[in-house]
């Protein structure tokens, strides 16, 4: 092996820095799934009857479904009876009402992850909902948001305090029968974030949820629901990590976004779940359904994701462009290293007239990893003048990894214009030597080339997250050059 491939391997091989475990007393269900488990879960959360009914319907439907086989990922069958469907840090004080009541160990955990929850050191201008295993442990800036009429709270709390909104919108974008993992999530979802932006309100700060899986042998099934009323706008950020463990852990989330007339939702994700070790042992299985409905005219939903973690990622944030003149965007950077597999992309469903969508996907593979872009652009009969532009680029680091692109198009309206561009490039030894000959180290050369490659996506991220994303990319590609 040449010196530069050795260095690539070294770069890739660096450690996962969020892999610690918090030792807490937890209230955890024994492994197993049946209707009684769902009833117990619903009772634990003191849920209204409609929700329990909905969960049970989803569960019964799920029993009739099979795990999807079409994605370009490979993993042994998951035994759903071995997973625990509820784990929460044991609450000694009957549920945190304010930050002062949150277990200091939890505050410490988030601090270690770079997410300060304590009042005096909160991230300026960002409200955070921290979800730890199955429950939300803290939400910051609640008061300030309430002044603006914005509701930002754990979905379990929304079920109690705003049941009408939940009943109206839950499952309206991703019905429980949508797919295998969505059905499972609908049956057993534990917590997640709820956002409601009233008519005409620009949310005064970035909202953010930080998901942390801590307990072993538990799945995390969070559910996020964001509703932007007419002429409102919101920018929402999501970050995730998990301890390093040898067993695979399941994360099957559902995110639903609803944008009414002239509303805008920007949803950004920096996903850094534990990816497994350099031999492919352990890591999170991340099977997520994210979908936004541009229900109103002139509405806009924009997804930006930087995916560096998870052993397996299966994820297609999508936009249903229902309202006339609505706009959907998808900007994605997906990095896979070692034995990671990612099958990700988007769906843009054009229903209304003059709807527009943009897809920019950047896949980076290193080590022995496989990175797949899978995208669907569908233009229905009435979507006159629909426009789509898709750009799909792959970058290979080393020669043992793979990139695959599966663009699907279904166009039923002759005035539509759908464009697709794709490219595959490789960080070659020639490029690395060239940079070194100009005085730049191989590590810096790789990160310079990768950052250049991802530039178009990073510029869509809110500032502080762009910086975090660049740093993260550096870490996940450490050991990738030689």
């Amino acid at each position: 092996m040449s010196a530069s491939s050795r260095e690539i391997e070294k770069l890739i091989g660096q450690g996962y820095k969020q892999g610690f475990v918090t030792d807490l007393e937890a209230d955890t269900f024994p492994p197993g799934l049946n209707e009684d488990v769902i009833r117990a879960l619903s009772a634990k959360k003191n849920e209204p009857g409609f929700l329990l009914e909905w969960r049970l319907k989803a569960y019964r439907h799920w029993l009739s479904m099979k795990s999807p086989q079409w994605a370009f990922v490979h993993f042994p069958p998951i035994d759903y009876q071995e997973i625990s469907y509820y784990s929460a840090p044991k609450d000694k004080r009957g549920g945190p009402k304010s930050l002062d009541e949150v277990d200091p160990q939890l505050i410490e955990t988030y601090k270690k992850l770079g997410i300060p929850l304590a009042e005096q050191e909160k991230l300026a201008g960002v409200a955070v909902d921290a979800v730890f295993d199955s429950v939300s442990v803290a939400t910051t800036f609640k008061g300030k948001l309430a002044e603006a009429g914005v509701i930002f709270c754990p979905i379990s709390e929304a079920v109690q305090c705003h049941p009408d909104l939940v009943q109206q919108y839950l499952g309206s974008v991703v019905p429980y029968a949508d797919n295998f993992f969505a059905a499972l999530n609908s049956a057993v979802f534990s917590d997640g974030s709820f956002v409601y932006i009233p008519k005409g309100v620009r949310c005064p700060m970035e909202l953010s949820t930080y998901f942390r899986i801590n307990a072993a042998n538990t799945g995390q099934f969070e559910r996020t629901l964001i509703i932007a009323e007419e002429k409102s706008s919101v920018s929402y950020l999501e970050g995730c990590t998990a301890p390093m463990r040898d067993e695979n852990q399941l994360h099957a989330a559902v995110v639903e976004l609803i944008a009414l007339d002239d509303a805008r939702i920007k949803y950004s994700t920096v996903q850094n779940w534990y990816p497994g070790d350099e031999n492919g042992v352990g890591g999170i299985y991340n099977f997520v359904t994210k979908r936004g409905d541009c229900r109103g005219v002139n509405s806009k939903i924009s997804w930006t994701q930087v995916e560096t973690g998870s052993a397996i990622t299966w994820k297609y944030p999508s936009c249903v462009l229902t309202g006339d003149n609505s706009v959907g965007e998808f900007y994605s950077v997906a990095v896979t290293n070692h034995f990671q597999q990612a099958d990700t992309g988007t769906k843009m469903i054009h229903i209304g007239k003059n709807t527009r969508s943009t897809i920019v996907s950047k896949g980076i593979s290193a080590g022995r990893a496989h990175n797949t872009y899978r995208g669907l652009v569908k233009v229905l009969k009435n979507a006159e003048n629909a426009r789509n532009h898709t750009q799909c680029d792959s970058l290979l680091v080393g020669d043992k990894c793979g990139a695959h692109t599966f663009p699907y198009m279904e166009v039923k309206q002759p005035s539509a214009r759908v464009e697709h561009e794709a490219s595959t490039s490789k960080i070659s030894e020639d490029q690395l030597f060239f940079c070194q000959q100009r005085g730049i180290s191989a590590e810096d050369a790789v990160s310079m080339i990768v950052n250049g490659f991802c530039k178009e996506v990073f510029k869509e991220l809110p500032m502080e997250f762009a910086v975090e994303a660049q740093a993260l990319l550096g870490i996940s590609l450490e050991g990738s050059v030689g």
Partner: protein
Amino acid sequence: MLAIESLHVRVEDKEILKGISLNVGAGEVHAIMGPNGSGKSTLAHVLAGRDGYTVTSGMATYNHANLLAMPPEERAREGVFLAFQYPVEIPGVSNIYLLKTAVNAIRKHRALEELDAMDFIGLVKSKMKLVDMDEQFLYRAVNEGFSGGEKKRNEILQMAVLEPRLAILDETDSGLDIDALRVVSDGVNALRSKDRSFILVTHYQRLLDYIKPDFVHVLAGGRIVKSGDASLALELEDRGYGWLEQHAGAAS
């Protein structure tokens, strides 16, 4: 500045350089000529530290240090510059970003402060005049979609910005039309100074009409078979390499 002593180099199982000795003093310009496949690029790459070459014996000393023991980026930071025969493209990375990263990596190594954006732009713009390049090239991806001549000019721009002590130009002249050749040569001549040395690798005598070398060496079959002053280049133009190659064959 640079002393190469009896350098033997293999690529895979093939011996390419079979004992090269060469002394380059400060401020000198050496031309290395020779037929295709004689090992000129191999020599340039070994001096710059490229992977894939095995030095089986001999040594190279640069400013009293063992050049061959340094990693490639350190050689660059110590002032060794290679203008590539085939400059690579780096999509997504702008020319100006590459230059800035390089300049600051080198300055850091020399314990100088990093240049801020204003100072850096000033520096680059002044150097662009040397090679008659339009500013728009700064914001394009490194060499992407550049013509052959533009790539070579870009190499000279990088050299001008990085201000090396030893510049090795590998066939910078090949593929250039006469105007581009003049621009490139003017650029090199402007950078000549008493403490900057050049090794000009070229296949054709033509370049040496524009850049007058102090010494000319003929490389054939992995050996320097003849050295002389600038007049040797003219002799080569008349007689070709044939007579020297026979000479090399007889010697081995």
